[in-house]
Every structure is written in C-alpha cells, then in structure tokens.
C-alpha cells in the first residue's frame, strides 16, 4: 500500500450556475509524477487552485499531504511548492537574492538557505550567473531556476502549471531531468502541460473534459484502452467532444 498524498472525493467548484469542476475523485501517490491534462477551460486551473488551498471548494472533500482543504489551508501551503509559466521569479533581483527571499518566506534558517543556494546553483551550473539579475537570463534557465526555488523548502508535493511553455526542446528535457530527480527524492509532482510527449513522461495522467475527469491511468494503459498509438490521439478522442472553453 503506497502513501496517498493527494486525495479528493467528489471535489466540486461552482461559480453561480457554472460548475467549473464537477465532482472529481482521484488519488496521487507519494513520489509519483502525475499529469493533469485537459482542454482549455476544462477546469484544470480551478481544480489546482482548490488543491493548493487558494480557493474553497463548493462541495466534496480533499486532503493534501494529510491536511484538509477547508480547514487546514495554512498547513497545506507549508507543505507544497508551486510554479507556473506566468509566475516566475523577481526579474529585478539577482539569482541569489531570489533564492534567499523565497527561502526566507518558507522559514528556512540562514544556514539552510546558504547551503541550499550553493547546492542549487551548482546543480544548475549557474555559478557565473549567481549575481546576475534573473531578468537577464534566458527563459529556459529562468524556468529551471523557478522550479528549483519551488522545491527549495522540500515540499511534499509540487504543483507545476504549464512549466515548459515556449521553452526549447533541449532545455525542456533538462527541465524534466529536474522533475525526475525531485520525484526520486520522494517529492510528488503534479503537472499540467499542453505538450503530449511530456504527458508520456508521467507515471499516471488524468484527462479532464468539461469539468469531469474522463480518463485516469498510465500513458501505456490509456493508449491501450483507447486503441491509440499516441497520447495525442487519446487526448483528441476525449477532448474533441468538449462543449466549453475557458
């Protein structure tokens, strides 16, 4: 029996008459790379916000790292990391300043921040850039740095919202190396993406259509079930019938 770190039970969010997320039930295991796919407007962002404790569900239940999404949002925030394509780092601070700032926010001690930032800069090969402004780095490096900062406080789960949009294919793979390494350390990775080849890198994926989870399995199993040769096809078969957009 594996540890379940994300567990939802009929989790629902309504905005007036509109059911953005409709009774989704699933579980994510510790150390798993979980792909959360769906067409634009399928309700991914809304679901992710509830899981991060940023938005209160309308009904249903969910526990994140053992904490309840209604009552223990502060605890949840301490135990997760978050990064999106939009939220990057402070462009007008240097690499080191950003690391120190976010380390400080998550309550790391000065000593911890010092060792962690050295470790991180070495791992990313950023030694000569450590004192440069983040704004001057290429996008791919920013995204890698942003991810490393998101897992700086060793969260149990890290949420990634389209982390590799627009990044070149080589850097994209380096980014996934970081994801794999984090998963190896036992960090659960919850990721959304529009790149279907990236969906293949996940242990399991779910595909949301119009607020509901229509499929959830490993990429291999999904392809078998839908009699498809690629994830692209699986996605197309499911999402083609989608009625709404964002």
């Amino acid at each position: 029996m594996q540890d379940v770190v994300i567990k939802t039970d009929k989790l629902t969010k309504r905005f007036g008459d509109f059911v953005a997320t409709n009774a989704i039930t699933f579980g994510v295991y510790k150390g798993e790379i979980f792909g959360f796919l769906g067409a634009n407007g399928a309700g991914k962002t809304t679901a992710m916000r509830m899981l991060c404790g940023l938005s209160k569900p309308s009904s249903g239940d969910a526990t994140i790292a053992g904490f309840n999404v209604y009552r223990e949002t502060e605890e949840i925030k301490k135990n997760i990391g978050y990064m999106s394509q939009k939220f990057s780092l402070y462009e007008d601070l240097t690499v080191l300043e950003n690391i120190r700032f976010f380390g400080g926010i998550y309550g790391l001690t000065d000593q911890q921040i010092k060792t962690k930032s050295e470790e991180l800069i070495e791992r990313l090969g950023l030694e000569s850039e450590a004192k440069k402004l983040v704004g001057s780095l290429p996008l791919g490096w920013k995204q890698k740095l942003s991810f490393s900062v998101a897992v700086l406080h060793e969260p149990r789960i890290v949420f990634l919202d389209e982390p590799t949009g627009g990044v070149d294919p080589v850097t994209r793979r380096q980014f996934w190396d970081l994801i794999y390494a984090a998963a190896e350390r036992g960090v659960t990775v919850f990721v959304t993406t529009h790149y279907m080849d990236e969906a293949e890198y996940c242990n399991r994926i779910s595909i949301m259509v119009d607020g509901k989870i229509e499929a959830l399995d490993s990429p291999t199993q999904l392809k078998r079930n839908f009699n498809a040769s690629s994830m692209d096809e699986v996605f197309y078969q499911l999402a083609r019938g989608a009625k709404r957009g964002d």
Partner: protein
Amino acid sequence: MHAVKLDSLTKVYGKEKTVAVDRVSLTVEQGEIFGLIGPDGAGKTSIFRMLTTLLLPDGGHASVDGFDIVKDYAFIRSTVGYMPGKFSLYPDLTVEENLGFFATVFGTTIRENYHLIKDIYVQIEKFKDRRAGKLSGGMKQKLALCCALIHKPTVLFLDEPTTGVDPVSRKEFWEMLKRLKAQGITIMVSTPYMDEATLCDRIALIDQGKILSIETPQNITNSYPDKLYAVKAENMYALLKTLSAYDRAADSYAFGEYAHVSFREAINENLLKDYLREKGLTGVELKEIDATIEDCFINLLRK
C-alpha cells in the same frame, strides 16, 4: 516574385546591443505555408514585426509582395494580415463588433469578404453577441484569425497563434490554415511546437536569432546525420541516466514514452540491449526509427 524575401535582416536591441535577429535570409513563395520554428527568444516576433513594418531593421533588407518594408510601408500595411502573439481583440466589444471594427478599419465590409472567413466564422457565429472577453481560448483565436483575414490579405503573418492552446484546438487551427492556403493566401507562421512543423510546406529552424536550417520538413528529417534508436524500459529515469553514461552514444534524451539514443553509425542492437540489462534495467525494448523535426532541432542545438 517571392511573397516574402529577407536578405541579411538584422535587429539589435538596447544599449547592450543584444542581437535578436542575426543576418537572417530566406524567401517565402506565393501560396506557401512557411513555418518559423524555434523557442521563445529565438527572434521570431522581431522578424514578424519587421516584416509587418512595425519595427525598422538595423541591417539588411526585406520585402513583402515586392514592397520594401522600410520605404513602402504604407503599401504593405494595406495588403498584409497580421495576428500578433499577444493579440487579445477588444474584450469589451462583442464578436460581431470586433469583426465589424477591423473590417472597417481595413477599408472593407464583413459582407464583401465573408466567403474568406465563412468556414471559421460559422463556428463562432452563434456567439456573435457575446463579448470577446468571455470567449474560450480556442474561440478567441478563431475570431482573431477572422479579424486578420477580413480584408483579404495576400500574405498572412501569424505569430505563435497556437501557444497555450490545447491540442484539439491546435489541430483545428491548422486545418483552417490549410483551407486558407487552398484559397491562395501565403501564410508565414511561427510556433514553439515542433510537432506543428510537419504541417508546413517549408520551415526555418531558428535559435538565438540565427537560422539553423531552411528546408521542407521531409528534407530536414532526411538529412538527420546519425542513426537514431528508440529505447524503452520499465524505469524511465534510470534508463535515461544509464544511457547518458553510455559513452558510445552520441546523444540521448527522453522522447515521449521512449528515450531516443543517437549513434554516429549503425550499431549492433544486441550489444546495447545487453548493456542496459547489465545495468539492471528491465523490460528493455529497442528499435531503429526515423528522426522527427524535434530530433533534428535537438541535434542542431547540441552542435
């Protein structure tokens, strides 16, 4: 005459003299779908902005429909269609008002060129009284395309029209482009998605302002220099680590459900399999494959 012609086109920004576009030369034939394929920051947007006369080049020349982008900017402005990357229309105007506005601004009417946009517009027509801000991403993109088409442009410039759009909408979008091509419109499109490259007639792979290669997608993949194998194993991460430690391989990286490994020349497949099993990997599968555009791009970037 070429629809678009770039001759050593260069763009330099700021005090640091960052070279965004570095002596780019290429030609786009009439009625062609030409793709600019490259990551963010490759210089795609700068090229588009120079061709649509929004930016002045710092070196070289370019022409669109035979008109010089500096001297004849007014001519170009009345003949081309342009959909910028950030384009969001007017969110507080309805679908119909947006379309009507752009039609009038371009000196035409919706009725006059309705046949051009009909295929696309029927898909959003039922929302014609809805404000553009309330449309979904895919619909907004369709409306934006209608607005860029309404004056019957000879050349259509689309700057990353599919970025951030889900795979289903992306597929539909490319089908629309093919139909436009059939109507004789030249299309120059940029995208960061490598899989979309095969949908173009010819593509330019671009990185850091420099052209890496200009060819038909088929020729680009044919000219891939190495032998490429797709490998699979139970534990992907372990497989990738093992492969990168295998010094006979030229390169290796994840690719969907497989890892791709390239070798300078043909290898004995069994030797590689044995090596992987020796390293404790299970469920090893191996097959030789043809390179995709993405493989070629990675190969060019690694050089």
